[in-house]
């Protein structure tokens, strides 16, 4: 059989068996539909299953090669003087008809077909061959006596002769389910079967098509099917394999791995399986990863083991191989599954706990056996086309799962790596119960007056009604809601499960590390938006609900894309680009070669001739254009300005540039100018929906008043941005990728900036003021970024995906001019855009979209100040494209009613999720997800890290914060053993929930959710966990501790002389070895900063000398000298009471 494509097998909850081809897009109903099945286990050539009658069946594919078996028997004769050769044999002789050895009596008519699945190909005939040579007619071969060597020639002393009779039988039950009948002693016959797993064909390839078939009976006994091979697809008999307990389920890998689960919740592992002993020898026991929840299901591959515990959590077993089939430790994976199945190449499929959708584990490679994320298989069934949607099937499906759904409200497959399954997840119903109301509400969205349509729709699904409010809320990313719902549904209090060691060998307590999501960070909220309410959902009756999946015959070729995941059109290009035949590695190699050849050419052609005159003289180049400028004087507004960038080339060949902005002031021509070598940052900002960017100098940073310029088109803005960025870099002689010491930062827009630290930055007593730091943008889009001082930089996207910096630079808008092509990859990120639908109550019509004249827009942003309709709201920028339609967001903080509404007395007010007598207005939030795809220097990394924050110190101390806000220390991490061995739980300070951790050389700082910064006391080499938390400051949004133990933070609010900025980069001064907590704060760039990391900066200040530049004098205009600064920063960050936020800060 040509196996260019292969099949994934699955059973739906009605017992119908479907297959999905690796090149197909539809589930096809198994050709033989006579039977309903509970379980199937497939390999390439066949599939075994347990039907609803608890009998075992095998389904053998038809193929070009017939399955034939040659029966043979020998006719033996002895010569006697009377009749010559005749049937009369001596009493000591063998039977007249026997097998080849003569020991077994075998008459022609004693042969019967082994099962009804066979048919005779022909009648018996004589084999007229011996050892490949033709015999004389009749096929006799002669010998002196039995047993002996037979020859085809009759000699004088030939006393006996024999000939071979042959008959072929052919296996006929192909492409149908063939019941496995047993001729065993009825006493020993297995009781009805419960589970089956086949594999083991790689243990030995003799005989052809040999398979290990393992089955579990209802009484918990394990059976091995003997002699299953190509010409005996049914095998012969069942052998009982003794087990240490009652077995619930079994899984057999393609090679020598065999695991089973016991009813008690442990796993047992078969040892000693090899060529000579495919049944193995003995069992070892492996404990469940969770002490409270035993193992329910296990599946093994070549050298991987996945399991599901009774709480439906998914676990991956590390360190499994032929020599150690038990592996070493469990890692919790994202998602809640009914079952998982490991197929060929260790690829993994699972069935979602709530949605009964089949998920494919993406990114499983030999180097990353645990894969990257679950991706829902969204394929219709061939049969759907002819089926009419029937409400009965919906109801029966719903009833079938009532219990499941009520117990499991967590509908999303969430996690840092996994929410990146973004659009895939969004396009399928995530929860059966939430589907009908969501779909109805979404479809009624276009006309606000028709919510009535939504209500009756939701009534029809009565049995599930109780869930409708709860499920969507739980699936939201709003962490609080999420946690609460988990608490409410999880029978075990989460506090008891807070932490533990996931390594079974070292600890007795077992980890229940909750799946990671991110905590909210300030302005950008709610991230799990894809889980809820995506439109284009299938009706529940159209969405197949799966019970079992088997990928043992499914060969997923990593290089040919599957068409199983209905890809939104917006995604196709990026997907396509990944599937192109030329790999990034190839491109990189070519690029290197080309670059090398060019360099060689330059060397060859220029080296000895540099003194030659240049043919073209360098000159001044001016770029001019019309932009808008956010003018300096009140009332502040945009005004048209002429802008000119003059570029000079100095005698040293370096370029410098001045930016002139010409404007009219009271009909008088004026201008301001900026030397680009003084510019500290050029950042894209979103100001009044314009394509605008801000330009800071140290002076303007102090004022919190950048030069804001806007272009008419995004392209024009990018042209200016890249030109200005280039010019800044050139004038500061910065080029190439960021250094290992670079300070990385992410703005609230997700833009990434790096700053190359100078040695003076940490110089005491007069460090370089951090408002003088130059930040340049690196392409890409991230939510947070972390690095160490060895050039390792990791980031996490808005969709919780993890990215690693490849050492390239540029990308994004910096394409072409200032970027490397090497190490540029497609980065994608998904972000939600929210708009609000506002309504006011009036006595006539009730709630309607008719507001008061003073009211906000009926479709607005969160503030109500901007009109945002569904039609006019655009993705965050043109680089983003929509990947979903608008849907109601039920995860808004404060809660919503069933239709997503939140009520309040008036706009603006605090909203609550239920209507009261005092409420006259209501609003609901609509969300729409958008996707950005750009070439950047970030490479996607899959992970199942269940933490929200992690940090690596100089001595490989790994600290992390889990989603529940507790801290962990990882023991025994070293360069040789980067994974360490186990986690130690560190209690949070004063019951605070932590959200971030940062580890310097020795210092460990954590940040809690209330903005308090804590220092870990009492850390010593022998006691790296430390002893207690010390409070350092409040008003902190993010922090970063450098390799010199320097401390940098993003402060929530900082008062400048002209305005207040939120999200400000600040530097802790006075940090000394004996004073690791430092003394005061110094304020740097700010307004809209989300995150900073200085973990790359290990540049030591020149010792004992004052930096060559004179220490920064206090700015006169600033009105607060160092003394004042020291005063005000002695204590935690001070903020003015005035809550007015400077509109000129880099707001996003």
């Amino acid at each position, binding site marked *: 059989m040509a196996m260019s494509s292969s099949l994934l097998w699955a059973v739906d909850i009605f017992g119908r068996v479907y297959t999905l081809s690796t090149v197909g897009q539809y589930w096809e109903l198994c050709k033989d539909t006579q039977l309903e099945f509970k379980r199937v286990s497939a390999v390439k050539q066949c599939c075994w299953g347990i039907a609803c009658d608890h009998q075992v069946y095998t389904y053998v594919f038809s193929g070009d090669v017939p399955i034939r078996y040659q029966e043979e028997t020998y006719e033996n004769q002895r010569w006697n003087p009377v009749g010559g050769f005749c049937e009369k044999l001596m009493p000591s002789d063998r039977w007249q008809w026997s097998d080849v050895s003569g020991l077994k009596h075998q008459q022609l008519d004693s042969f019967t077909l082994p099962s009804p699945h066979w048919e005779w190909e022909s009648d018996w005939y004589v084999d007229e061959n011996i050892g490949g040579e033709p015999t004389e007619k009749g096929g006799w071969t002669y010998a002196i006596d039995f047993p002996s060597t037979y020859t085809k020639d009759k000699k004088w002393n030939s006393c006996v002769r024999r000939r071979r009779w042959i008959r072929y039988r052919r296996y006929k039950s192909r492409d149908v389910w063939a019941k496995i009948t047993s001729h065993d002693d009825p006493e020993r016959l297995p009781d009805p079967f419960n589970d089956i797993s086949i594999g083991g064909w790689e243990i030995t390839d003799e005989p052809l098509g040999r398979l290990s078939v393992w089955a579990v009976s209802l009484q918990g006994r394990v059976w091995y099917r003997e002699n299953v091979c190509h010409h005996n697809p049914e095998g012969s008999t069942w052998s009982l394999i003794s087990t240490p307990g009652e077995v619930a389920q079994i899984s057999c890998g393609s090679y020598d791995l065999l695991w089973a689960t016991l009813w008690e919740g442990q796993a047992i592992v078969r040892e000693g399986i090899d060529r000579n002993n495919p049944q193995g020898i003995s069992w070892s026991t492996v404990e469940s990863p969770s002490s409270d929840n035993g193992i329910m299901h296990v599946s093994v591959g070549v050298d991987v083991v996945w399991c599901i515990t009774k709480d439906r959590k998914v676990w991956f077993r590390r360190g499994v191989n032929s020599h150690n089939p038990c592996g070493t430790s469990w890692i919790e994976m994202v998602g809640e599954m009914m079952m998982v199945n490991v197929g060929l190449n260790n690829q993994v499929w699972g069935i979602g706990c709530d949605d009964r959708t089949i998920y494919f584990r993406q990114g499983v490679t030999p180097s990353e056996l645990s894969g990257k994320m679950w991706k829902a298989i969204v394929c219709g069934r061939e049969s759907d086309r002819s089926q009419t949607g029937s409400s009965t099937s919906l109801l029966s499906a719903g009833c079938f799962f009532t219990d499941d759904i009520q117990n499991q409200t967590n509908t999303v497959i969430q996690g840092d790596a996994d929410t990146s399954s973004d659009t895939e997840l969004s396009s399928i119903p995530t929860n059966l119960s939430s589907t009908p109301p969501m779909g109805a509400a979404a479809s009624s969205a276009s006309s606000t007056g028709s919510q009535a349509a939504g209500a009756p729709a939701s009534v029809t699904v009565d049995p599930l009604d109780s869930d409708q409010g709860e499920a969507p809320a739980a699936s939201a990313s709003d962490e609080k809601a999420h946690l609460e719902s988990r608490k409410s549904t999880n029978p075990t209090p989460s506090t008891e499960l807070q932490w533990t060691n996931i390594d079974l060998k070292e600890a007795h307590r077992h980890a229940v590390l909750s799946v990671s999501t991110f905590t909210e960070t300030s302005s950008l909220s709610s991230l799990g938006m894809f889980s809820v309410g995506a439109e284009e959902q299938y009706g529940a009756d159209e969405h197949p609900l799966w019970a079992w999946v088997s990928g043992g015959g499914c060969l997923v070729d990593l290089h040919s894309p599957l068409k199983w995941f209905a890809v939104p059109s917006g995604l196709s290009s*990026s997907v396509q680009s990944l599937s192109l035949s030329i790999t990034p590695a190839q491109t990189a190699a070519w690029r290197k070669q080309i670059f090398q050849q060019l*360099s060689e050419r330059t060397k*060859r052609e220029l080296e000895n001739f540099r003194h030659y*005159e*240049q043919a073209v003289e360098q000159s001044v180049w001016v770029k001019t254009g019309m932009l808008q400028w956010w003018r300096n004087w009140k009332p502040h507004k945009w005004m048209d300005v002429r802008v000119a960038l003059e570029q000079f080339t100095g005698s040293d060949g370096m370029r410098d540039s001045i930016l002139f902005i010409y404007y009219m002031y009271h009909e008088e021509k004026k201008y301001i100018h900026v030397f680009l070598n003084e510019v500290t940052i050029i950042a894209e900002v979103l100001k009044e929906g314009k394509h605008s960017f801000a330009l800071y100098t140290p002076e303007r940073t102090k004022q919190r008043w950048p030069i804001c310029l806007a272009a008419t088109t995004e392209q024009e803005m990018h042209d200016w941005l*890249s030109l200005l960025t280039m010019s800044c870099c050139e004038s500061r002689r910065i080029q190439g990728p960021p250094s290992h010491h670079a300070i990385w930062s992410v703005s609230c827009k997700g833009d990434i900036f790096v700053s190359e630290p100078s040695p003076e930055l940490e110089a005491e007593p007069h460090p370089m003021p951090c408002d003088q730091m130059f930040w340049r943008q690196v392409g890409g889009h991230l939510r947070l970024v972390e690095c160490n001082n060895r050039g390792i930089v990791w980031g996490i996207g808005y969709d919780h995906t993890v990215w690693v910096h490849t050492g390239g630079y540029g990308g994004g808008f910096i394409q*072409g001019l200032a*970027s490397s*092509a090497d190490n540029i990859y497609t980065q994608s990120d998904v972000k939600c855009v929210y708009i609000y639908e506002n309504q006011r109550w009036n006595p006539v019509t009730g709630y309607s979209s008719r507001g008061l004249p003073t009211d906000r827009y009926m479709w607005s942003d969160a503030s109500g100040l901007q009109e945002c309709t569904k039609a006019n709201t655009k993705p965050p920028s043109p680089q983003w494209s929509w990947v979903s339609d608008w849907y109601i967001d039920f995860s808004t903080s404060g809660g919503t009613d069933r239709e997503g509404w939140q009520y309040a007395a008036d706009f603006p007010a605090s909203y609550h999720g239920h209507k009261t007598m005092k409420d006259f207005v209501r609003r609901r939030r609509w969300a729409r997800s958008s996707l950005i795809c750009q070439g950047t220097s970030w490479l996607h990394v899959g992970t199942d890290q269940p933490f929200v924050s992690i940090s690596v110190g100089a001595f490989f101390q790994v600290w992390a914060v889990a989603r529940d806000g507790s801290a962990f220390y990882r023991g025994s991490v070293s360069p040789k053993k980067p994974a360490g061995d186990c986690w130690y739980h560190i209690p949070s300070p004063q019951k605070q929930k932590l959200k971030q951790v940062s580890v310097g050389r020795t210092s460990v700082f954590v940040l809690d959710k209330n903005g308090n910064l804590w220092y870990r006391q009492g850390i010593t080499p022998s006691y790296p966990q430390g002893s207690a938390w010390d409070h350092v400051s409040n008003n902190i949004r993010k922090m970063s501790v450098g390799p010199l133990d320097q401390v940098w933070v993003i402060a929530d609010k900082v008062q400048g002389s002209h305005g207040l900025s939120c999200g400000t980069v600040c530097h802790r001064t006075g940090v000394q070895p004996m004073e690791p907590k430092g003394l005061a704060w110094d304020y740097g760039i700010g307004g809209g900063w989300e995150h900073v990391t200085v973990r790359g900066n290990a540049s030591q200040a020149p010792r004992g000398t004052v930096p060559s530049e004179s220490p920064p004098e206090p700015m006169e205009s600033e009105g607060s000298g160092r003394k004042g600064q020291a005063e005000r920063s002695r204590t935690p960050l001070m903020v003015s009471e005035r809550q007015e936020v400077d509109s000129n800060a880099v707001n996003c």
Partner: protein
Amino acid sequence: MTDDKDVLRDVWFGRIPTCFTLYQDEITEREAEPYYLLLPRISYLTLVTDKVKKHFQKVMRQEEVNEIWFEYEGTPLKWHYPIGLLFDLHASNTALPWSITVHFKNFPEKDLLHCHSKDVIEAHFMACIKEADALKHKSQVINEMQKKDHKQLWMGLQNDKFEQFWAINRKLMEYPPEDSGFRYIPFRIYQATTERPFIQKLFRPIASGGQLHTLGDLLKDVCPSAITPEVVLSMIEDVITLSPVWHA
């Protein structure tokens, strides 16, 4: 490659050290010193040789000066080929500096185009750009550009301003993400033969099977003979992006 600044810079700043000598038969008043210059590979001879012209005119009588033209080992050098191409085509094995003979008389009408002003070069250059864009984007990009963009492109080349040039040229080198490449790859394969100076053909960047074509595929397709020991490939575009010597 078009988003690779390192490579682009190296291509842009490719220079050929050249020694200009006046043709022996030119009549001079004084002895003409050779003139040494670093020529940008991506530019045109007549665009960057004002200094050469001035230098030799100083020693010549005004009436002897006609249109300047250049010759290398007997081959008149076509000014409308990029300098790098001329060098690779005719002189790649020569010792540096490249020795070019300067003529002011006997303009080889049948070999060379006249170049009376820089406007002629600009027109030729823009024609190449437009031709390339016609192949790449059905001329959509170049047509959407403003006159000043065209000017900036040209001025960038003329003044050897990498950023100025690439700020505009970048747009010509982009394609929408849903396409996986240009419509056709603009290219010409130049040969040192006179009967067929270059080969040009429509060539898609993507094979029917979806695979990206490589330069090797292109050569296989376009000159299967590929027996020419040395094929010089030069993208005509703007660009001039690459004129690496391709050893077939």
